[in-house]
Structures are given as structure tokens and as C-alpha cells.
């Protein structure tokens, strides 16, 4: 009875397996294999093999994938088409007419999701009240369908102005296309995400049309391979909203997979939150080229209603609010025209990689800085031989013009990159009205523990946690997920003027739909938890905040309560609120969750528990390192040999199988019984 979590990243495919029937630490298996970009399902099967898992014993598979994101970034999908209202052919291309860089004369915008020659218009128009202004011209609709057929376009987005109010014209258009192209895959904006403001709804619908064949083909291929290997377990896919859905749902709603990759890390954070009874967390993940930060409140990741996936390409499905910046081990240090030391966003990537990899890289990177500072093992645990001289030579190229020693400069590079990472934390906390100092920081990623203390200090966080599975956090998180669906409908009405009975009816209809989705994903109605929220704003405003709404039949007293709750949320998110302005509903949302086939936290925790008796020291060697302008001889500990409640005072280094934890002077680490390393990063005045 094995539960599998699988995460496909750019370089590695991670597997985390939990075997309820094994005993002790054998219950848990972690594997990393190289990703196979031409067919990512190959790496999944390889990972299962190298973990020595008998496929027939698998009880559930939960899979996080960047396949949708990569297809989007590279525009690698069967060419889609758009049919839209006459006069609005270019919404997808114009965006909101802003430029990304204020003063860059040579900038270009990202190419449109669907090129202009594949964007068609028809005469039709509904008013903002849903009334017919111009009926759909059926002859023209038929003509467009024939053009689509002639061009052999099969995946089609239909997105009409004001269709958030009513989808009848879009449905008529779909019928017209299906008459001519019976096997067309068609996404309607009124079904994809019926929310007001055309750009977000059109973009989301175009994305669904583009991804339908990509995600459909991939998941079918993966299901086939799993079945061939003898696995009959249900396949679930990690969604952008932090929950999961069945593979069948994912084939129909592929646009909900855009943040499927990193969402597993947030789920892992939720699991830790419950395990440690810590409610407010900031979860970070350091990779080779990017740093990601997200915030959990009461154990639940903050969600954004609208996310710009590229410049002026907003997707309006609920997505975990994960802020990503280009900063990681490969980030290059350089001196700009004004003589200032900068780090990133350019990265040496995997090829040539940092100078110390000896593959021809000559530019100094963050990894080179950490190496010369003695913070990473020059043999990477015996796997590799890093070139210390090459790293020092590379850093010298920036140190000398600045009048710094190589070590001073290397430490400066780590401080600057940590400061950049801290900015991502500020943006996910301060920018959303949360104080980072109230949170526990969790560091994922092999390099997560390298800079965690510096980053925490910069934002004023004093507690940092590095869990034992930090290197496969997303795959681990996948095994702890719930099924989750968010459904929405536009309901524009001032609270004063809203009819509570009509509001209740709208919610009840959404609740029925969401329960049907959950049931289709294997969640019996009795096990489904359903929660209402509304996106609301002051009348005349255009930005909504998500406000909780009580369950059951709503009355006038509930409306007043909802308005109060809105003011409280608005105050927190934006720092201001006013009872002088009337409040309006814009979008109603119902979130349905159902517990997945996940292992009980207490069982998983027991498997993580340190069983050993602590015989022998955890210190594997001593190493010369450099902190705050001075050399230190420090202990290098093996995380696997720590005993529960062991206390390690900085400066020190703790090595994990896939990563490193750096404890600067003044920081103190304690290993908990679950092999989590809890660090107190003591406040120290910077620079």
C-alpha cells in the first residue's frame, strides 16, 4: 500500500513514497532521477523503478508537473484559434497597452498566445446586463467554423465580450464549430472562468484551448505507462490552487496546472504547520536559477485571484501566491556601469555553470562565493570535485575593481543575493499586509539552508526550519494533498441592494457543481467540505478582496456581517478601510475540498522519527570558513547522525544528503525528533 508523490522539475524528477505497511524508516523512500524532457512520463517510470517500488502495490499517485508551464513558455502546443466578438480581435495581443520596462527603447512584448491570423471575429454582442444587443450571426459563425476546418485548427477558444454574464452566444458558437469539426476541443470563456474584465478571462480561455491537447496527451500517456507496469491506482494532479484533482479533471481544466510544480512545496508547508502546530509560515525554495517564496496563514497558502504569468497575460484561476525571482546558486555577480556590485538575474545555468564546475564558466556565481567561503563541501559529498581556484579567480574579477579581497567580495555576493531573496519574501508578506516577523521560515531546496539565516535576518524573522525532505519537498507535499476545486460566478450587486435569497441560490448552485466535481474525483458527498467566499470591493473600485461568507440560507443580517468582514480584510490587505463607501459583491466562489488518500500525519511523522541511539558524534569533519570578516574553524555535522534535541551553535555547517545548512555565528540549531532542524537566527545589526 504505497502512496506516491512525484514532482517533475526542469532538471530532476523527484519521487517521495510512503509505504504504510513497512516499518520504521523503511516506510519512506526518496529518489531523484534526471528529467526526460522529450517525454516526461519516462522519468516518472524510471523513478518508480529506482525506488524499487512494485507498481501493483501503489495505492495512489499524486503528480506535480511543469508540463503546462513549459508548453506555455515555449509556445509549444498544437496551434490554437480564437473566436471573439467583432471589434475585439486583439485583446490577447494588446493586453492593457502597458510596457514592461519604463525606459527601455528596444523592448518587445511576449508573443500572443494565439497569433492574429488564427483569431476570428463574429458579429454578436450581449450587454453588461446579459440582454442581447446583437444576436449571433449564424451564417458568419458557420463561415468561421469552415475556415477553422480548412486551416485544420482543432483546439479553439471562444471568448465573447460580456460572456461572464451569460454564455448562450458562446454555446451557439461551439455548436456551430462542432457541426463542422466534430472532434474539436473547444474552451468557452463562460465555462472556463466567468469573471468580468475581458483580458483575464480571454487569456485564461486561450490558455485552456492551447493546453487541452498537451495535457490530455501527456496524462493519457502516463496513465497508460502506469497501467502497463501494473499500477491500477488513481492518478491525481497537483493544481495551482494548492489542492489536487483527478487526471480526468485535469485533462478538462489544464489551465489550472500553471503552478502545479511549486504547489507541492506549499502543501509540504501545510503538513509541517500541522505537525509543529505553527500557524504562520513563510515557505521558501532555492533552486539553481530561481528563488520562490509563499506565505501560509493558519496552515493554508495564500491564494491570488489573478496572476500575471507573462507580461500583460493575467490568468484568473485561483493560484497560490508564489513569488519567484531569478536568484539561485547559478546567479552571476557583476559590476554595472555605475560601479555597483550586482548579483543576477543572469544565471550561469547548468551549462557552463559556476566557474568551480570546471566546465568553462568564468563568471563568478553565488555557488563560487559559497565555495571560497568554505560553506559548501568541495567534493559535494564525494560526488564531484569543485575547482576552488577557478572560483577564487572568477570572484577576483569583481573583487579587484571594487577594492575588496576575494573573501570580502564573496561574502558580499552572498549578502546581496540573500537581500534579493528577502525582497521576494517582503513582496509575499508586506505587500499583502502581513508582517514577516510573525512567521516561521521554512527552507526547501538543496540550497535552501545555505542562505536561510541571512535571508531571515534581513526580513527580521528569527526562526528558520529546515526539514529532512527539503530536497524533495514538492514530491513529499504532493502525498499530503486534498482534492480541491474552486468554482466562481459573477454576481455584481451592491450589498445594500443584494437579494439574500438570490445570493443563496447562486451559492447553492455553485455548491452542487463543486460537489459533483469532487464526486467525479472520488470524494463522496459526505466527505466533501465546502466553503464560501466572495470577491468584493467598494462600489466604483476595481480590485476585489476575498471575503468569507457564512454557509446556509443567507438573510439581511448576514449581509451586514459580510460587509463588516470585507472592511476588515480590506484594511489588512491595503491598510485602509471605510464604512462611508458602499460595498459590492463581484464574484462568488465556492471551494470544495475532500481528503485525498493521504497518509495520516502522525504515521508519517513516526516514520521520520530519529530511531538511532546517537552513538558517536555527528561531526564528520572540521572546515575553515569565513563569516562576517573573519576566519573560523567550524564543525561540519552529518544531519543523519544528529540525535533528538541536539543543540548546535554557530558558526557551524550541517550537511544533508542533498543540501547544506549554514549556521552563521550567533545562530543556534536544534534537531527535533522528526529530523527537522530548527534554527534561531539571532538578530544582528546588518552592515
Amino acid at each position, binding site marked *: 500500500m504505497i502512496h506516491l508523490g512525484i514532482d517533475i522539475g526542469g532538471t530532476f524528477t523527484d519521487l517521495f513514497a510512503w509505504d504504510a505497511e513497512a516499518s520504521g524508516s523503511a516506510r519512506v523512500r526518496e529518489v531523484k532521477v534526471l528529467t526526460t524532457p522529450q517525454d516526461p512520463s519516462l522519468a516518472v517510470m524510471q523513478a518508480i523503478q529506482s525506488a524499487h517500488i512494485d507498481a501493483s502495490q501503489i495505492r495512489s499517485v499524486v503528480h506535480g508537473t511543469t508540463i503546462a508551464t513549459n508548453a506555455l513558455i515555449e509556445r509549444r502546443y498544437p496551434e490554437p484559434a480564437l473566436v471573439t466578438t467583432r471589434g475585439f480581435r486583439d485583446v490577447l495581443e494588446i493586453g492593457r*497597452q*502597458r510596457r514592461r520596462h519604463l525606459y527601455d527603447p528596444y523592448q518587445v512584448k511576449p508573443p500572443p498566445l494565439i497569433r492574429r491570423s488564427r483569431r476570428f471575429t463574429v458579429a454578436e454582442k450581449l450587454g453588461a446586463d446579459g440582454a442581447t444587443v446583437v444576436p449571433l450571426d449564424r451564417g458568419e459563425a458557420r463561415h468561421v467554423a469552415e475556415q477553422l476546418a480548412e486551416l485544420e485548427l482543432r483546439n479553439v477558444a471562444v471568448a465573447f465580450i460580456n460572456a461572464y454574464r451569460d454564455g448562450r452566444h458562446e454555446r451557439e458558437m461551439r455548436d456551430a464549430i462542432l457541426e463542422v469539426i466534430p472532434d474539436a476541443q473547444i474552451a468557452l470563456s463562460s465555462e472556463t472562468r466567468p469573471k468580468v*474584465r475581458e483580458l483575464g478571462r480571454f487569456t485564461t480561455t486561450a490558455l485552456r484551448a492551447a493546453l487541452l491537447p498537451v495535457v490530455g496527451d501527456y496524462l493519457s500517456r502516463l496513465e497508460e505507462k502506469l497501467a502497463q507496469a501494473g499500477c491500477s491506482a488513481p492518478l491525481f494532479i497537483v493544481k495551482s490552487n494548492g489542492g489536487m484533482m483527478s487526471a480526468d479533471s485535469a485533462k478538462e481544466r489544464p489551465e489550472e496546472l500553471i503552478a502545479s510544480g511549486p504547489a507541492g512545496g506549499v502543501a509540504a508547508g501545510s503538513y509541517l504547520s500541522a505537525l509543529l502546530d505553527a500557524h504562520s509560515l513563510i515557505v521558501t525554495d532555492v533552486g539553481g536559477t530561481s528563488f520562490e517564496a509563499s506565505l501560509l496563514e493558519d496552515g493554508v497558502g495564500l491564494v491570488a485571484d489573478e496572476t500575471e504569468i507573462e507580461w500583460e497575460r493575467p490568468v484568473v484561476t485561483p493560484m497560490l501566491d508564489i513569488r519567484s525571482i531569478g536568484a539561485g546558486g547559478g546567479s552571476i555577480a557583476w559590476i554595472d556601469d555605475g560601479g555597483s556590485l550586482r548579483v543576477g538575474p543572469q544565471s550561469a545555468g547548468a551549462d557552463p555553470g559556476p566557474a568551480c564546475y570546471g566546465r568553462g564558466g568564468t563568471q563568478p556565481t553565488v555557488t563560487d562565493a559559497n565555495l571560497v567561503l568554505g560553506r559548501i563541501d568541495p567534493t559535494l559529498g564525494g560526488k564531484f570535485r569543485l575547482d576552488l581556484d577557478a572560483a577564487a579567480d572568477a570572484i577576483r574579477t569583481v573583487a579587484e575593481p*571594487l577594492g575588496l579581497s576575494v573573501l570580502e567580495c564573496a561574502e558580499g555576493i552572498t549578502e*546581496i543575493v540573500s*537581500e534579493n531573496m528577502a525582497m521576494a519574501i517582503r513582496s509575499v508578506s508586506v505587500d499583502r499586509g502581513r508582517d514577516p516577523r510573525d512567521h516561521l521560515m521554512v527552507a526547501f531546496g538543496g540550497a535552501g539552508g545555505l542562505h536561510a539565516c541571512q535571508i531571515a535576518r534581513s526580513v527580521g524573522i528569527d526562526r528558520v526550519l529546515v526539514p529532512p525532505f527539503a530536497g524533495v519537498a514538492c514530491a513529499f507535499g504532493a502525498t499530503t494533498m486534498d482534492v480541491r476545486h474552486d468554482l466562481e460566478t459573477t454576481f455584481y450587486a451592491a450589498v445594500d441592494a443584494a437579494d439574500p435569497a438570490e445570493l443563496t441560490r447562486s451559492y447553492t448552485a455553485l455548491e452542487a457543481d463543486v460537489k459533483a466535481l469532487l464526486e467525479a474525483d472520488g470524494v463522496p458527498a459526505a466527505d466533501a467540505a465546502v466553503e464560501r467566499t466572495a470577491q468584493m470591493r467598494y462600489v466604483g473600485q476595481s480590485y476585489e478582496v476575498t471575503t468569507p461568507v457564512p454557509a446556509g440560507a443567507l438573510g439581511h443580517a448576514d449581509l451586514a456581517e459580510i460587509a463588516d468582514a470585507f472592511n476588515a480584510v480590506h484594511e489588512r490587505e491595503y491598510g*485602509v478601510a471605510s464604512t462611508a463607501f458602499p460595498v459590492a459583491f463581484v464574484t462568488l466562489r465556492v471551494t470544495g475540498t475532500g481528503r485525498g488518500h493521504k497518509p495520516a500525519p502522525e504515521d508519517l511523522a513516526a516514520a521520520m522519527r530519529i530511531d538511532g541511539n546517537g552513538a558517536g558524534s555527528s561531526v564528520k569533519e572540521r572546515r575553515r570558513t569565513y563569516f562576517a570578516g573573519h576566519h573560523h574553524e567550524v564543525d561540519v555535522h552529518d544531519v543523519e547522525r544528529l540525535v533528538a534535541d541536539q543543540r548546535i551553535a554557530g558558526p557551524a555547517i550541517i550537511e544533508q544528503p542533498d543540501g547544506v545548512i549554514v549556521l552563521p555565528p550567533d545562530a543556534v540549531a536544534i534537531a527535533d525528533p522528526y529530523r527537522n532542524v530548527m534554527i534561531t537566527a539571532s538578530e544582528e545589526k546588518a552592515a
Partner: protein
Amino acid sequence: VTATTTKPERQLDPITFEVLRRSFEYAPERMSQVLQKASFSPIIYDMVDYSNAIFDPEIELIGQTANCPVHIAAMHFSARASLERFPLAGLEPDDIVILNDPYRGGTHTPDVTLTMPIFYRDDLLAIAVSRAHWTDVGGNLDTHIGGEGLRLPPLMLYRAGELNDELIEIIKNCTRTPQYVEGDIQAQIGALRAGRDEMLRLAHKYGADVVKEGMREVLDYTQRMTAAAIDRMPDGEYEGVDYVDSDGFSDDPVHVRVKLLVRGDRITVDLSASDPVTVGPINSPYGNTASAIYYSLKFFLSPDAPPNAGLYRQIDLTIPEGTWLNPSWPAPTFGCTTASSSKITAAIWKALAQAIPDRVIAPTCSECNWFLASASDPVTGELHVLSDLPAGGWGGTPFNDGMHVTMDPLGNCQNLPAETAEMLFPVRYNSYQMITDSAGPGKHRGGCGVRLEVEFLGRGQIITMETSRTREGSPGVNGGGNASRQRQLRKLAEGDVQTIGGLDDDGNWYPQMLGNVGFNPGEAFVFESGGGGGWGNPFERDPNLVLEDVRNELVSRERAADIYGVVINEALQLDADATANRRRQRS
């Protein structure tokens, strides 16, 4: 990677400097987030027509946000005017001064500026400034600034913990949109406080002296980058001319004539040869003109340097009083921020085309096309006020085509989404679509303009629209061609179209400055924005790119043949032989 040749005089270590440099960008970013999210008027929250900035105690710009460059340098003059009227000695923490007078550092009158000193332990640490375009402060096209609506001198808005309610009552009495006033003031105050909190966080962490040293060094840093860029330009005198089609009260074009004198690492911008003060409202006060010059040059001097006052130190300005680019009271100025600023940019870029032909880009459409309209509800009669700003194309560059439908350099505002407009106002948006053949042709063509159609359900009115580029489209550079002209039209309920501004099909030209133009129910205001100018000879454009443009209906087959010399058959296939022949014959 190049290190600077001269070693800068520095007290901060490079790491602290870099952290502060980034933090000076973050503070105004925070201000803008708060302002956008908490504002109540569509022009702020949806169209993001505002700017926020942090100044040092000497009122030098330290950091700004990326919305309206034209606001930024003028803020220096408004902050100075505010603190001259209310000296620091008499101010308390959190006190706020308000003003919008174009002759005291304002831009056009709807731009309202709030200024707040930030004190750290009783010493002035910095000054936070927030300028936002309010939907309306009254006024219309006029020949006297007294007719351009409410004009606030520096006044205390918030003092010793109290809002000046009487002042707010006056403001609400003088606008067509009183419902937005309190919300927008609240949002701008929220922005100033967010900026204050960030600056105080820095002072707390590093000490006020280090923060101030950081300010000094970040100014020097931008100055160095600017000086190095000017130094790379060949010394010489370069000239550029552009014009506004008319001032609205005569039919004569009004010219900006720029002379750039590049000497070593300094530039002098001389506008002496420009036309005199005009009767109609396109005069640009000194602060507005200075802003336009600075941001126009920044694109080619130091786009990556922190946007601060260090840029200004390498640039000398000669803008004689009495020209329309340095007028004095009571000359009207309503169109200065839109039609006037963008012509200064185009004239400067044309001059730069002589200095750095391999790096300059062709002028953009050179208009922001902001208009203010009223629309009455056909059932209740309630009068609504809305505004929008349909952008034009950008110019072709040495490396690629210009962007389609993108806000002019003077700002970076968003259009009003059709669905938002129809939800909030008694109008129908019937079109917001790119115009075929609107882009200036070139080896790298300009971007396309857009056709906007706003239908009024009840009675409608264009209250004001200050724009231009209706006589000629934006020019190309290095052999590139002109873009399309802009046009203002009325579409009758039956579908017939009349020209109300610009050239009609018979070659008659109608004045393009609109004031109080009425529309009957069912009639629509149609605006066609221009494209960007082309870069380089269109005959050198890759025929496959022309083919792609034709397939995308951005360029017609006729124009592909005539202007680009590229022959494309009815099946939309490239005729390579005919193309080669055609290009040979014409070259």
C-alpha cells in the same frame, strides 16, 4: 563587464550601497501598490495614471515608480513650492501639503500632488510625494488658466492628525466627480504612509546617516552612468522639430524646436527657437517641459540607472520665458501633460537620430490620447463621467519592430477594459482593435494604432480631448516611413460616419482639440490612434516578415507591394521572383 574608470568617492561598502539602492526602489513600489489597490476612481486603480516618489532632504529625487515619467521631475518643483509655503520648522510628522497648480510644479490641473515630510527622531529623513490624475477637477478648453478648473496652491491637507475638511468640501464642490474625492485622498495618504514606513525601516536598521549617505551615493551613481553615456555620443549640435497640430483656438501648428549640444559628458537642451506662448491650452510650464526633456533623454542615456536626480546634473536646459514651453500665468496649460510632452520627446528623438543613428528608435505615435467624457443614463438621467486613453504604436528600433498599441513614453497607463466600462457607465464599447496599415513602414516597422468606438446609450459628451498627429502620422527615421494619422469621428446611429477632428476623406482638416462635443443617444465617438514610425528602408525588410504581417492583416497586400516591394498572391503566398524584380526596379 566593465568597471568604471574613475574610482568613485564612497563611504559605504559596496554591499550596503547595493542594498540601499534596491530599497530606494522598493519604497515607491510599495506606495504605488497601496495607491492602486485602495483608490476609488477608475483612472487610478484601473488605468494607473499616477506616480509616487521619494525625495532626499534637499528635495532631490531618490526613487520613483514606473507609471508616469512626465510627473516625476515636475514633482521636484511642487515639493519645493510646498515646503517654501510651509517651512519644515512648522511641520509635524504626518502633515501633508496638497497642490495641483501647474505654475507651482503641477502638471495639468487634474494631476493632484500630496507631499509629506518623513521625520526620523525629529530630523528630516526624506520626503514622500504622491501625484495622481483625478478623474476631474472641473474646467474645460479655455484661453485662461482660470477656466481649467480648480487650481490649488500649496495648502495643508492634513495637519496634526486632522484632515482639513473644509478644503475637501471646496474640492468636492468644484468637480464633476465628487464621489471619488475622499476615496482618492485616502488612497494617496495610504501611499505616503507606506513610503514613510519603508524609509523609517531603513533608518531604524542602518541609522539615518547611512541612509542619507546612501542617497548621496545613489545620486552620484546615476550621474556617473549618465555622464558615461553622454561621453560615448559624438560631440556636436543636433536639431529636431515637431509640432502640435493646433492649440484649439487657431488652425496653426505650434512647433517645438530642439537643439541638442553634446560636449564631452554634458548635454545642453536648447528650446529657444520654439514658438511663442499660445492662446489655447497646450502651453507647457517649466516643470512639465523639464520632465519631458529628462525622460526623453533617459531612454538613450541610462535606462538602467536608478531613476533619480543624478540624471539631471549632466543636462543643462535653455527654455526661454515667453515660449510656449515656459509660459507664465494666465496662459492655459490643460494639454501640456499629453499633447505637448509627447512632441518634446519626438523632437528630441529626431535630433538624436543624427547623433546616434544606430541606436535611436523612431518616434512613437507621440500621443497619449486621454479624453474625458460624460454619459447620461437613458433611464434615470444620472450623469456619469469617464475617461480613457487609447494608445498608439511605438517606433521601429534598430533591432526589432515597434510595439503595437502601447502607452507613450510620457506615461504607462492602462486602457479602460470594455467590460469594466459597460458595467460602470451607460456606454457600449464596440471596438478596441488594431488598424491595418497604421504602422510606419520600415526595415523594422512601427507598431499599429487602435480603433476605439464608444457608443453612448443616453446623451454623451466629449468634455475635453487634447491630442494631435492628425495632419501627419508619426515620422520614421533612417529611411523609415510615416505611420498613419489619428482621426476623431462621430458614428451616427444609422452607421454613417462623420469626421469631427483631423482629415476627412475629402482632404478637409478639422481642429483636433475637442471641447464640449455632444453626442445623441445611439451615436458613438470613434477614435483611431496612430502607429509608430518606421526604422530603416522598408525595401530592406525580410519578405517573410512582410508575409507574416499580411497574413495577420496588419499590412494589406497592396501596401506590401507598394511600400515594401513584396509581392504576395491571393492565396497569401510569397511570390519571391516578383518581389526580387520589384525591389530591383525601385532601388
